[in-house]
């Protein structure tokens, strides 16, 4: 061992690395020393004193968990003095806590190991159990004040809810200002539960953790967002009872509320168990029915009958109306293999490129701008690169809500000294950690970003060498931004010119600046322009192609990156080969052995328009819910009802399923194997933990059954076969083999040759564009399509909230998540609440030119004055009834973030 520190540990000659503590060495040497406040990966605090050892020549004992050995030190572990101290500490702690239900916790383990019996001291006065929180039970009679929960909450997740209050015997764990947990600002990430060594903090409904003897553990990944957290499910029988964070490159054992507590939707009694066929006497209307009433519209059928009907009708439409009368919506929730198979079915079985998925509604504009600017739609650097960044710029994103675990790494980086700049009309939790938060007027992104670029050019903070060597089009860009001096946009954006200058300087002059953005940037009718500006910002300062720099559009769905890579988009084959490129088409015709359409297909919203016109007659929807997620839902729902043939493949009776002719019951995430690609381009393994209920089947099996009824002859026997075929078509993952993926859990592409370690940072030497250079694309400020007026004076922004995922089809059926956020709420600034004569919690009616809904008004001072925010997860108050379906001209993404509305109080 290089530069080892040689010392004596309990008579053994040992050697330590400079970063190792005595406890580290002892653990490595197999010496058992009790430890409770110590948790690997957490900061050592040495407060429990159960790991005391004697260092020869020192007056008092030392805590092995905090003390680093020095050369020549003689450390005694099992001699009488340190042993008595450790035993007394354990006895004191045991006297502090009530008896555990089971000997499952760490304190009991060490007491048992060290032979600590009934304490000779009086017991501590017991405290009340706090069961106010739906997810976490607080029993402070089990608390030993080790502060692992405090460090979990404040140093790992940086949610800053848990504190250690009081002093002496009155020392106690508190939430906020000593509130009940359920009334606190706790975001229920559950890191504290995972950290607690005694069960003082445990999952609510604790019966599930009482006995873990018959549990199986399955290593998988979280089914929700694009962060891609690794987790382990504890399974009893055919039931998942608990989720635990597992150490992965994207999450380091952390999870958020959805991953940790949102898994039981798979056991919801609304799961589809049988194939369903629309009753002959059930006509289609534009109004979805509730799941409870589904049997008024449908009847059960066998797989044989359902598949024959589902595929037969598609074949008939294809043969009679032409291939372009068909379309498919795949899902970014499915695996890479499912996405690949589904687009292959539509392209080869239907014979059309009318294939799209929800990426169109989230990052289509980002991808368009990225492909145009730097030739690749993928993120340049992983989230974890924030550790290497000197400055982090977050724009149009609420990572603490939508990518909570990614946000923890940003907050960690800030605590370690990185600068954080937030540009957003919304003041989120992240803003509290920011050096600068520019709360600009909604819709003025392009003006603000142009002004920032103006300052960078004006003060000559550009990276001339980078621009000269690696880009084209700078002069045109410079010309455009000349019209955006900060003092001119000050009034428009509502940001003082000096602040714009300060931010510009910070971004440009830092050694490594990294940009993150979300739907706030992309979901606008000028979404592509917004992203173009961000790309230009990175290019002109050379903040790309190095660790800790770059461009990172935060991906929403767990597999939106993978689904796009796999070709689940209308203009690209797998690996972003354009469908209207002859070479690409011929390659795939050869690879798949059939003729392919050379026409770009329609996008999500365009397919709906075509359906309402009658141009598209048959639609296959796998795992998507356009009847909730699309803008201007009235129109979408009418279009869905207008279809001749709609096949919906899902795990629940979604709003979209209401309009189906055939419903195919599918297996849920935890019931399948497959690979998923996270926002960082990490390909990770989802593993089957339980069997699908009823007759529900795996998606790849269903797609293959459909394919074979459409005249294709597929014979995949396992998921692995599909992955192998994908590798043949996608050089970026060609070097990944299934066994290695299975063993290593997570591999980052490009990984071209087997044996490569993968590529974390892209564009180090060049861009994958035709010229190898990045291209500046100037953008002019244009305001949104629908501006507020006297009739509709407020701006509605839609999005997601922490506890609910997208259309709520999963999370509204996850018991804890739904209990945490049970009903539709509309967020407003307190000033607007006052001005509108409302009060916090009152019921209101929200109206736009397209629709209306009822919800509760809730005060959130982070919301920009004059704006309201609402999540689109509530079927009983579907906010997309109100949104505008005008599109970004380049990427066809709808402008969800800006709609004119008004509010009335409901009496």
């Amino acid at each position, binding site marked *: 061992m290089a530069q080892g520190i040689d010392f004596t540990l309990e008579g053994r000659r040992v050697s330590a690395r400079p970063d190792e503590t005595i406890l580290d060495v002892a653990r490595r040497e197999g010496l058992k020393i009790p430890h409770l406040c110590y948790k690997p990966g957490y900061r050592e*605090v*040495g*407060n429990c*004193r*159960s790991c*005391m050892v004697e260092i020869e020549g020192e007056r*008092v*004992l030392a*805590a092995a968990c*905090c003390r680093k050995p020095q050369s020549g030190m003689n450390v005694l572990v099992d001699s009488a003095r*340190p042993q*008595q*101290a450790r035993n*007394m*500490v354990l006895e*004191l*702690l045991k*006297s502090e806590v009530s008896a555990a239900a089971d000997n499952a916790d760490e304190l009991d383990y060490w007491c048992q190991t060290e032979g600590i019996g009934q304490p*000779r*001291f009086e017991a501590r006065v*017991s405290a*009340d*159990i*706090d*069961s*106010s929180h739906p997810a976490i039970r607080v029993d402070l*009679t089990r608390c*030993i*004040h080790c502060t692992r929960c405090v460090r979990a909450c*404040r140093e790992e997740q940086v949610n*800053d*809810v*848990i*504190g*250690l*209050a*009081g*002093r*002496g*015997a*009155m*020392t106690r764990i*508190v*939430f*906020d*200002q*000593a509130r*009940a947990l*359920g*009334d606190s*600002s706790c975001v229920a990430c559950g890191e504290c539960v995972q950290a607690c060594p005694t069960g003082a903090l445990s999952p609510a409904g604790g019966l599930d953790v009482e006995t873990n003897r018959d549990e199986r553990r399955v290593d998988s990944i979280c089914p929700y967002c694009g962060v891609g957290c690794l987790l382990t499910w504890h399974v009893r029988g055919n039931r998942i009872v608990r989720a635990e964070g597992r150490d992965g490159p994207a999450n380091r054992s952390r999870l958020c509320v959805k991953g940790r507590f949102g898994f039981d939707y798979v056991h919801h009694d609304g799961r589809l168990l049988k194939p369903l066929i629309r009753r002959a006497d059930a006509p289609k209307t534009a109004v979805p029915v509730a799941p409870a009433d589904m049997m008024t519209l449908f009847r059960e059928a066998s797989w044989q009958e359902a598949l024959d009907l589902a595929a037969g009708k598609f074949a008939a439409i294809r043969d009679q109306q032409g291939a372009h009368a068909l379309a498919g919506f795949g899902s970014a929730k499915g695996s890479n293999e499912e996405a690949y198979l589904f687009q292959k079915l539509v392209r080869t079985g239907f014979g059309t490129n009318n294939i799209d998925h929800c990426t169109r509604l989230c990052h289509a504009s980002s991808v368009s701008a990225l492909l145009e600017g730097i030739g690749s739609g993928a993120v340049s650097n992983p989230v974890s690169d924030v550790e290497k960044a000197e400055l982090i710029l977050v724009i149009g994103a609420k990572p603490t809500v939508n990518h909570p675990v990614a946000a923890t790494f940003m907050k960690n980086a800030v605590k370690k000294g990185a600068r954080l700049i937030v540009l957003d009309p919304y003041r989120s939790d992240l803003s*509290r950690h920011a050096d600068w938060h520019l709360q600009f007027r909604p819709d003025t992104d392009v003006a603000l970003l142009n002004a920032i670029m103006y300052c960078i050019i004006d003060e000559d903070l550009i990276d001339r060498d980078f621009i000269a060597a690696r880009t084209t089009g700078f002069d045109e860009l410079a010309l455009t931004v000349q019209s955006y001096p900060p003092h001119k946009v000050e009034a428009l954006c509502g940001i003082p010119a000096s602040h714009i200058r300060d931010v510009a300087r910070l971004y440009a002059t830092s050694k490594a600046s990294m940009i993150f953005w979300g739907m706030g940037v992309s979901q606008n009718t000028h979404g592509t322009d917004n992203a173009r500006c961000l790309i230009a910002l990175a290019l002109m300062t050379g903040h790309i192609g190095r660790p800790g720099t770059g461009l990172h559009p935060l991906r929403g769905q767990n597999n939106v990156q993978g689904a796009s890579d796999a070709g689940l988009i209308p203009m690209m084959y797998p690996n972003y080969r354009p469908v209207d490129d002859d070479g690409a088409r011929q390659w795939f015709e050869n690879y798949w052995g059939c003729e392919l359409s050379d026409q770009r297909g329609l996008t999500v919203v365009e397919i709906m328009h075509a359906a309402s016109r009658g141009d598209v007659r048959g639609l296959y929807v796998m795992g998507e819910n356009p009847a909730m997620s699309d803008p201007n839902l009235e129109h979408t729902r009418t279009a869905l009802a207008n279809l001749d043939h709609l096949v919906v493949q899902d795990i629940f009776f979604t709003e979209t399923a209401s309009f189906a002719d055939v419903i195919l019951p599918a297996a849920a995430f935890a019931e399948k194997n497959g690979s998923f690609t996270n926002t960082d381009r990490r390909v990770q393994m989802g593993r089957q933990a339980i069997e699908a209920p009823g007759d529900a089947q795996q998606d790849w099996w269903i797609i293959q059954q459909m394919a074979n009824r459409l005249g294709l002859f597929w014979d995949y026997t396992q998921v692995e076969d599909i992955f192998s075929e994908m590798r043949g078509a996608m050089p970026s993952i060609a070097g990944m083999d299934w066994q290695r993926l299975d063993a290593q859990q997570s591999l980052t592409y490009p990984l071209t040759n087997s044996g490569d370690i993968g590529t974390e940072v892209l564009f180090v030497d060049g861009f994958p564009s035709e010229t190898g250079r990045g291209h500046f694309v100037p953008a002019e400020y244009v305001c949104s399509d629908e501006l507020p007026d006297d009739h509709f004076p407020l701006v509605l922004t839609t999005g997601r909230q922490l506890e609910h995922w997208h259309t709520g089809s999963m999370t509204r059926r996850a018991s804890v998540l739904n*209990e945490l956020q*049970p009903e539709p709420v509309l967020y407003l600034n*307190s000033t607007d609440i006052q001005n509108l004569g409302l009060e*916090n*919690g009152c019921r209101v009616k929200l109206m736009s030119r397209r629709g209306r809904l009822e919800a*509760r008004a*809730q*005060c959130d001072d982070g919301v920009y004055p004059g704006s309201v925010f609402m999540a689109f997860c509530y079927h009983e108050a579907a906010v997309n009834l109100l949104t505008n379906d005008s599109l970004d001209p380049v990427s066809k993404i709808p402008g969800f973030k800006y709609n004119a509305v008004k509010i009335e109080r409901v009496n």
Partner: protein
Amino acid sequence: MRKSPKPTKYRANRQGPIIDKALRVRLLALIDDETPRRDRLIEYLHRIQDRYNGINARHLAGLADIVGLSQAEVYEIASFYSHFRLLGDGDSADEIILRVCDSLSCKLAGAERLLEALGKVTGVRVVAAPCMGRCDQAPVAMLRRQAISHASVERVASALEQQDFSEAAPPGYIGYDAYVAAGGYTLLRACFNAQWSRDEIIDTLQQSGLRGLGGAGFPAATKWRIVCGQPAKRMLVVNIDEGEPGTFKDRIYLQQDPHRLLEGALIAAFVIEASDLYIYLRDEYPGIQRMLGDEIATLQARSGLKLPHIHLRRGAGAYICGEESALIESLEGKRGMPRLRPPYIAQRGLFGYPTLEHNMETLYWVRDILEKGADWFACAGRRGRSGMRSFSLSGRVRKPGVYRAAAGISVQELIDEYGGGMQDGHSLYGYFPGGASGGMLPASLADVALDFDTLSDYGCFIGSAAVIVFSQVDSARELALNAMRFFADESCGQCTPCRVGTTRAVQLMQRDVWDQSLLHELAQTMMDASICGLGQAAPNPMLCAMKYFPQEFS
């Protein structure tokens, strides 16, 4: 165990409180800092309390918002310090709090009877409180910010009538002009003019044998040298959190001659090239705080010298902040929890910078030692000891007070030569040689030398030289319990041996029969395994009671 009721499903404030914008403006005015700083959090809490007589949840939420901390962070800090009155929903800010000292010297002077009698006085809420540093005037009480010496029901009632519960600056102290007129700050100027080299200063201190007078007794010159050897920038911290029961020497010196401390501190700052000088004064001395603030301002305005930044901070009622690293945490605006060492504060102290921290008295003598020579300080001494010590003498003596006496003096000599003998009707039964934590000794050991290092064979130490004398009417066992209660209340709560150990010890010591073997076992772990001196020393009086006063247990 009771289950708390489930809240209704819809929870309006689940995402945290809504900040009252008008209140935020008022708080900002109160804070009156251009850029609110988290390290000044304790000062901000004081200002809120001074203005509103208490701190409620809205204040804390507003303050958290202003300094950019979470509510939990602010709450845990506010709840650590006993002088902050956190108002619950039903609490009235108008209530007048009367703190009555029940620590050792005041207990000997009848604090328990006083507490009981004051319970009947209307218009105040009476709470027992730890040592207030006025043991020469025992029993003592504080009516909000005003100290009442020789407290009685009558004196409290008359103080209540005055309606002004603040404390004036101490009368008759030597102000800036008088100090300068008598030659003050000449030495500091000489240092600035290179008439003294840094090495000369340190060498002189070394020859004088000056040791840290807060209790630890670490040689001052060595400490200065260590800090000088650390990379810049460096900090100087003056510890005036005198809280050891029975100790009041810092108060006495300060209220007579504050500039002697300031000059000593500035010389230390000069030697270690400190950029900042932090003075941490305990909250129990509001009159001194007022005076010191004024005098520092005068000094800064009129010295004409390029002084380091001088920051005067006040504590908020936490004995543990007298521990050097806990004090640093407190200066950083945090809970006063001692740090684990290594690293030592000389390496990484205040805000992570190398820090020289001294008890105020150590610095107080620097000017005299340099001006009068090392021998002036070193020459005194009895029983082979050398130097002068400032004894805070209290308890059953005729003339309690602070006495500068030769190191190595015995308690008998101290009582006879300085304390005017025992009070009438009292004979020496035992004494605490160094406050509550220094242990206690019986009358049979009244002739041992009182100094650093001389008492360790007896299981005691001199600490801050707070000698509390008790007599045949007192019970060592009860005094030991009083001391243990004090430690249990004042434990920072961080480590198990101290937090749980002191509490369990109090429970065992309240029993009719002490389980002596268990107490010995517990004591050993507290001494061996506690993080800081509080827990390590807490068993001393208990162990001494069993060792030297066995007759009380038979």
